[in-house]
C-alpha cells in the first residue's frame, strides 16, 4: 500500500468511526462514554489473560490512562478520547510489522529474512529446497483467471476463497503472484504473522492484522471501516467469508457476511464522491487440497459439543514449522496438486458481471447498479437493505464454492469407505460410529472398488452438468487407481492414516479423518443413491447435540 494512502486511510478511519458513534448516540444509541466503557471492559478482560510482554504492558498503561481520563471527561474530551482509541486500533491493524516475527526472523532465520527483504521469486525460494517439488507445478490456478484480471482493471476486486487451512493464505498469495496481479489487502490473524515461514506470502497479500482475541465492538468497527476504505482507495481485498477454517471439512455454506457488507459501503461512498471506477466486484475462489495440514485438529474441534469448539485455534499443526515442512514435502513428493479455482464474479448485489464489469440481470440484460442504492434519488447506505443485498451475495458465493469444488482421490476414497461403514453398521448412530466404531471397521477391497465405481459415475455425471469439478485422477482414473491414490495420500502424512489396505481388505483406521475428508462431498445429495441420509445436516446441529 502506498504510504500516502495509508496515512489518509488512517485519518479517515478515525473521523468516520468517531462521527458514526456520534450519529448513533444522537439517534438514541449508546453515549460516547458508554462506547469507551465497553472498550475498557473488553480490553481489560483480554489483557488479564495476556502474558507479560512489552506490547501487553503498553496496552495496560494505555487503558489505565483511558479509564482515568474518562471518569472526568466532558463531551469534547470523550470525543477526543474515542478518537485516540480508534486511532490506536487502526494503527495496530494496518501496521503489519510484528515484533515476534522480527525477533525470530533476525535470530533464527536471517538468510530467509534476507530473501524476503529482497523479494525474490517464490520459485527460487522453494526451488532450492530439497525434497519439495516446485510450487508453481503443485499449485494449479484455474477457472476464470482472465475474467478476474479484467475485473481488476475495471474496478476493485474482493477475492473470496473457501477456508480449509492456514496454508490457504500462502497458497493464495502465490496464486495472486502467479496470476500477475498486485498484492491483495488481507486481514490476517495474529498467529499468521508469528510464523516466519509465511512472511513472504503475507507481503504478497498486503496483510493487515486482525486480533481475534479483541472482542471490543469498536475494534470490529475499526476493522470493517479500514477494510472498506482500502476498497474505496482501489485496493483489491481478500476476505475469507467462512470467517474461520471449516472445521468439518465441508464446503462452507454458512458464511459470515459482515466484512463482505463493506463492498456496498465502498460502492456507495465511491458513487457519492463520483469516483472514476466506483465498481466493486466479488470473485469466489475455491481451494482444494488432497490432504489438509490441520485435518486432525479441525475435525476434533468440530466433534466437540456445540459451544465448546474454538473459534481461534493457536496450538495446531500450523504452529509447528517441522510439521508444515513434512506436510509440504511429502504432499509434493506424490505429485499432488492444490487447486485454486477462480469463479466468475458478481457485483455487491449478487448479479453476474461481464469481463467489462457490466452487471447483468437473470436474462442477460445490463443493469444500472447505482439504482440499487438510491434513497430519495441519491446514493446512500441503508443498513437493513444492505444486509439483504449482502445475503444475496452470500448465496451466490455458496453456489460458486459448491460448483467449483475440485474433488480429489482422498475425498472419494474417504466418502466410499465411510458410506460403506455406515451401511455395515446401520444400527450404530453416526456419532458413536465415528467416535467408538461399529462392529466392523474393515471392508472387502472389492466392495470398496465397486462403490467407488458407482460414485465416480455419479460424480462424472454431476461434473458434466457443471455441478462440481474433478481432479485429474478422479476425472479419468479407474476405481482402483482412485482408491490406491487416496490410500497412498492418507499414508504419507497423518499420524494415523484415515484408512489402510491390508491384503484384500481396507481398514478404517481413523474414522474422524475419514469423516473429515468425506465431508468435502456433503451437500451434493450423493448419499441418496447410496441409500443414506446426509452425514451433516444444514446446521451441523445433530452431530453437535449427539456428541
Amino acid at each position, binding site marked *: 500500500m502506498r504510504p500516502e494512502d495509508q496515512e489518509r486511510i488512517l485519518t479517515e478511519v478515525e473521523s468516520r468511526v468517531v462521527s458514526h458513534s456520534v450519529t448513533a448516540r444522537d439517534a438514541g444509541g449508546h453515549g460516547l462514554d458508554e462506547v469507551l466503557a465497553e472498550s475498557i471492559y473488553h480490553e481489560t478482560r483480554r489483557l488479564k489473560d495476556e502474558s507479560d510482554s512489552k506490547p501487553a504492558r503498553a496496552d495496560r498503561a494505555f487503558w489505565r490512562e483511558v479509564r482515568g481520563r474518562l471518569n472526568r471527561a466532558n463531551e469534547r474530551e470523550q470525543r477526543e478520547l474515542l478518537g485516540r482509541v480508534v486511532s490506536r486500533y487502526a494503527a495496530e491493524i494496518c501496521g503489519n510489522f510484528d515484533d515476534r516475527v522480527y525477533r525470530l526472523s533476525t535470530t533464527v532465520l536471517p538468510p530467509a529474512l534476507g530473501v524476503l527483504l529482497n523479494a525474490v521469486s517464490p520459485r527460487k525460494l522453494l526451488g532450492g529446497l530439497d525434497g519439495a517439488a516446485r510450487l508453481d507445478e503443485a499449485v494449479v490456478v484455474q477457472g476464470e483467471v482472465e475474467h478476474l484480471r479484467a475485473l481488476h482493471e475495471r474496478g476493485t476486486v474482493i477475492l473470496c476463497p473457501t477456508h480449509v487451512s492456514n496454508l490457504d493464505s500462502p497458497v493464495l498469495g502465490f496464486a495472486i503472484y502467479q496470476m500477475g496481479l498486485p498484492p491483495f489487502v488481507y486481514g490476517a490473524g495474529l498467529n499468521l504473522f508469528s510464523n516466519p515461514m509465511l512472511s513472504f506470502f503475507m507481503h504478497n497479500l498486503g496483510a493487515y492484522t486482525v486480533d481475534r482475541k479483541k472482542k471490543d465492538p469498536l475494534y470490529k468497527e475499526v476493522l470493517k471501516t479500514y477494510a472498506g476504505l482500502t476498497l474505496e482507495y482501489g485496493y483489491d481485498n481478500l476476505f475469507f467469508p467462512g470467517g474461520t477454517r471449516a472445521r468439518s471439512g465441508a464446503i462452507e455454506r454458512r458464511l459470515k457476511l459482515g466484512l463482505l457488507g463493506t463492498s456496498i459501503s465502498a460502492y456507495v461512498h465511491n458513487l457519492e464522491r463520483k469516483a472514476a471506477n466506483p465498481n466493486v466486484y466479488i470473485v469466489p475462489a475455491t481451494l482444494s487440497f488432497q490432504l489438509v495440514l490441520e485435518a486432525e485438529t479441525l475435525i476434533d474441534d468440530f466433534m466437540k459439543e456445540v459451544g465448546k469448539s474454538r473459534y481461534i485455534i493457536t496450538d495446531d499443526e500450523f504452529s509447528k514449522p517441522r510439521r508444515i515442512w513434512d506436510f509440504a514435502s511429502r504432499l509434493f513428493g506424490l505429485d499432488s496438486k492444490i487447486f485454486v479455482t477462480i469463479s466468475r464474479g458478481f457485483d455487491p448485489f449478487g448479479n453476474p458481471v461481464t469481463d467489462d464489469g457490466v452487471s447483468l440481470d437473470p436474462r442477460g440484460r445490463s443493469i444500472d447498479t447505482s439504482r*440499487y442504492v438510491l434513497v430519495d434519488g441519491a446514493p446512500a447506505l441503508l443498513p437493513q437493505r444492505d444486509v439483504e443485498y449482502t445475503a444475496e451475495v452470500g448465496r451466490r458465493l455458496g453456489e460458486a464454492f459448491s460448483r467449483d469444488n475440485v474433488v480429489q482421490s482422498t475425498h472419494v476414497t474417504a466418502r466410499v469407505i465411510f458410506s460403506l461403514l455406515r451401511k455395515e453398521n446401520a444400527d450404530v448412530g453416526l456419532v458413536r460410529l465415528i467416535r467408538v466404531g461399529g462392529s466392523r471397521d474393515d471392508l472387502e477391497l472389492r466392495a470398496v472398488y465397486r462403490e467407488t465405481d458407482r460414485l465416480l459415475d455419479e460424480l462424472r455425471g454431476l461434473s458434466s452438468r457443471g455441478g462440481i469439478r474433478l481432479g485429474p485422477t478422479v476425472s479419468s482414473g479407474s476405481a482402483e487407481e482412485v482408491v490406491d491414490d487416496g490410500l497412498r495420500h492418507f499414508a504419507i502424512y497423518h499420524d494415523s492414516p484415515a484408512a489402510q489396505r491390508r491384503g484384500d481388505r481396507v481398514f478404517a483406521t481413523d474414522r474422524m479423518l475419514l469423516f473429515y475428508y468425506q465431508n468435502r462431498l456433503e451437500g451434493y445429495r450423493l448419499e441418496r443413491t447410496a441409500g443414506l441420509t446426509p452425514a451433516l445436516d444444514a446446521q451441523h446441529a445433530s452431530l453437535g447435540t449427539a456428541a
Partner: protein
Amino acid sequence: MSATIAILGGGRLAQAVAAILEPTGAEVRMWARRPAARRTLQKKLTHTTVADSVHDAAADAAMVFFAVPASGLREVAAEYGDCARGDQLVLHATRGVESGFRLPHAVIRAETCVRKVGVLGGPLHFKDLTSGRPLAAVLASRFDETAQWVRRLTQKTPVRVHPSRDVIGVEIAGIISNVSALAVGMVDALGLGDTARGVILTRGLLEASRLGEALGAEPSTFAGLAGVGDLIPRKVAATERHHKVGELLAGGETLAKALEAVRGEVEGVLAAAEAVRIAELRGLDLPLVHTIDMVLHGEAEAAAAIEDVLRLDLDLGGGLSARM
C-alpha cells in the same frame, strides 16, 4: 404522495388496488394485456392512466404492482424486466404457483433485476371497502423499506398494512388457502356443517405451515394475519371461484366442467398438484392437499375422501407446525 405507481393487470384486483390508491395522490398507471380491456378500463377509470405497454406503465414507477394470476406472471414479469430498475419496489398478491412449486416472488426475481419484491397476503376482503370498513393485509418483503413505503402511501386509505419479512410464508399461506377453499366448497356442498368446515380450514393451515417450514418459512407466519387471519374464506371472486369448484366436484361434476362453470383462474388446482409433488420429494405429510388433488383428478370420491380427512387426528400440540 407524488409517486408513480404501475399496476400490471386489469382485472378486479387491479381495479380494487387503483380504487384504494385514489385518495393517495399517487399517479396510477394501469396496463392490461388485451387492447379491448384497456379501452374499457380507459372509459371506466377516471383517476387512472391506462398505458399501452408495460414499459409506459412501469418505466418511471416507484412501485410496480403485479395483479395477474400465476399463469401469466412470468410473461408479464419478463416484459417488465426490460425496463425494471433496482430502486423499484415490486408487489404482488398472486396466490398460485408455477410448475415445480416455483413461488411468485422467485418468478419475478428470475425475470427481472429487482430485489425489493413484496407479497400482499391476509384477508384482503375487498368487498368491505364498499361498506367503509378497513382492510387488513400483511406485506412481506425482505426489505423493510417496502412496507414502510407502502404504509406511508396508504396512510390516508382504509388499508392497514402489517409488515413481515417472511415472503415464502405469506405466499404459501395464500397458495394453500386456495386449496382449503376448494375443500370448504366440498364440505359445504356435502352439508357437513360448521364444525367440519373449521376442522378442514385448520388442517389446511397446519399443512400450509408444514410445507412452508420445509421451504424456509417462519412457522409464526401461519399463526398471524396471513394464516389464522385469513381462515375465514375471503369474499373475493377468486376465493369464491375455488369454493364453487369444490361444491361442483362434491356434487359429482368433472373438473373440466366445474372449471368451465366458474370461468376464471382456479389456481388451487395446480397448487394442490404441485404441493403434492414437492411433499413427496421432501417426505412431507399433507393429507388434505393430497385428498383434494385426488378428488380434483377423479381419483377419489369427495364425500368419502373428506370424511377420511376429518377422521384424522388434528394434533396442534406444540404449535401449528407440530408433526402428526
